[in-house]
C-alpha cells in the first residue's frame, strides 16, 4: 500500500536536496544564508514568521524588499532545479533569472489559496524544460560535429577520486538522454525530494501520471546505468 501523502497545504515544504558546498541548514529557505544581501532583505528572507504569501502581498503593494526576499529565498532552489534539468550552469542561471522576471510579471495572478512554491516551481520547470528542448534541437544541428562536446563544468573537485568523477559524468550523460518529462519527475522526486502529489501540480499532470513517469524514469535510468559503458555512446 502506498503511503498516503498529505496535501500541499499541510505538508511542509520539502527540503531534502542540499546544495553542494552549502551548510545542511541552507536547504531550509527560512534559515539559509543570505550573505551579500541588504540587511532588510536578508531579515525578511530569513524571517520564519513571514510566509511566502505575505511577501507576495507586500510585493503587490509596491514594496521592493519583499520581492527581493522572495528571490533570496528561492533563487538557490530555482537555480538547482534548473541546473538538474538543463545540466549547464550558465543556462541554469538564465532560466532562474527568467523565472523570477516571469514571476514578477505575473504576481497579480497568484492564487493565495495555493502554495507559492508549487506555483513558482511550475514556472521554473516549464522554462527549464523549454530550454532543454531548445538546447536539444539546436544541438542536433550544430554541436554534433564538435569533437569531445562542450566543456563540462560539472567536474568534481581536483582532489576527488577519478572513479567518482567518471561516475558523475556518466550519470549526467544518462540524464541528458532521458526524455524531459521523465527527467523532470526524476529530478523533482529523487534529487529534490518532492512527493508525487507535489510534483503533479507543478508539472500539470495527474498524480497517477507523476507516479508512472517516476517509475518509468527510474527504470530507464537504471537500464542505462547498468549497461556497460561501451554501450552508452
Amino acid at each position, binding site marked *: 500500500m502506498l*503511503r498516503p501523502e498529505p496535501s500541499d497545504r499541510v505538508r511542509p515544504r520539502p527540503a531534502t536536496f542540499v546544495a*553542494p558546498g552549502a551548510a545542511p541548514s541552507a536547504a531550509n529557505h527560512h534559515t539559509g544564508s543570505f550573505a551579500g544581501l541588504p540587511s532588510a532583505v536578508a531579515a525578511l528572507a530569513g524571517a520564519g514568521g513571514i510566509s511566502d504569501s505575505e511577501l507576495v502581498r507586500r510585493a503587490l503593494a509596491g514594496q521592493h524588499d519583499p520581492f*527581493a526576499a522572495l528571490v533570496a529565498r528561492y533563487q538557490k532552489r530555482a*537555480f538547482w532545479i534548473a541546473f538538474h534539468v538543463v545540466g549547464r550552469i550558465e543556462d541554469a542561471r538564465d532560466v532562474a533569472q527568467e523565472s523570477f522576471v516571469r514571476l514578477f510579471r505575473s504576481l497579480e495572478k497568484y492564487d493565495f489559496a495555493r502554495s507559492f512554491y508549487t506555483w513558482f516551481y511550475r514556472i521554473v520547470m516549464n522554462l527549464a524544460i523549454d530550454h532543454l528542448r531548445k538546447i536539444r534541437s539546436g544541438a542536433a544541428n550544430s554541436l554534433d560535429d564538435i569533437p569531445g562536446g562542450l566543456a563540462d*563544468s*560539472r567536474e568534481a*573537485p581536483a582532489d576527488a577520486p577519478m572513479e567518482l568523477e567518471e561516475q558523475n559524468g556518466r550519470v549526467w550523460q544518462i540524464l541528458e538522454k532521458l526524455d524531459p518529462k521523465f527527467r523532470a519527475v526524476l529530478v523533482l522526486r529523487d534529487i529534490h525530494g518532492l512527493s508525487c502529489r507535489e510534483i503533479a501540480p507543478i508539472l500539470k499532470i495527474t498524480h497517477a501520471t507523476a507516479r508512472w513517469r517516476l517509475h518509468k524514469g*527510474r527504470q530507464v*535510468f537504471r537500464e542505462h*546505468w547498468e549497461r556497460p559503458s561501451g554501450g552508452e555512446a
Partner: protein
Amino acid sequence: MNLDSCERVLAQLDWFVGDDLDAAAATAVRSHLRECVSCRAEAGALQRTRNTLRAAAEAACRGVDEAMFAAMHDEVMAAVRDQEMRDAAPPSLLRRVLPFAAAGALFVVGWTVVRHWVPPSVFDREPIGTSVVAPRQAHPFGVPALPLRLLSDDSVEEPAADGLGAGMMGRWRLRTLEGVDATAPLLPPPVRREH
C-alpha cells in the same frame, strides 16, 4: 521463497526504496527482504542507482558558491527593475500614434478605390426579348458571337410542309400527338433551310 510474494514485493520495491510505501507495506517488504536473497539483491541495485543519482546531483560544481548567488540576486533584481520601468513608462509617441496612422492610411486607400465606382444596376441592361444584343467583337474564349433571338420569333418552330414539324419540335409533336407506340412514318432527314 514463494514466487507470488516475490512478484508482489518486486512490484513494490521501487516505491519501497524511494520511501513511498506506508508503514505496514514497508514492514511487509522489509520482512520479505530479510529472507529472500534475490529480492534483496534487486533492492540493493535499486538503492545503489538512486544513491548514485543523488551523489552526482550533489557533487560540487565549479563556480557555484555564495558569491555567485549574491551576484545572481543582483542580476535578478536589476532585470525586475527594468521590467518594472518598462511597464510603468508611458507608451512611446510612435506606439501612441501608430494605430491612428494605420487607420488613416486604410481610410485613404479605401476612399481612393471606391470614389469612382458606380454600382451595376439591372436597369443598365436591355429588357429581355426586346432587342438583339450587339454581337461581341471579341470573345475571350473564341466562341462566335450568337445573336439572341426574340421569343416571339417562331420561325424555328414553324411546322414543316408535311405537318410534322422540323427538328426537335417536330419530333416532340410527333410523340405528343401520336404517342410513342404509334406507328409513325419515319421522319424525313433534317433539311438545312436556306434563309
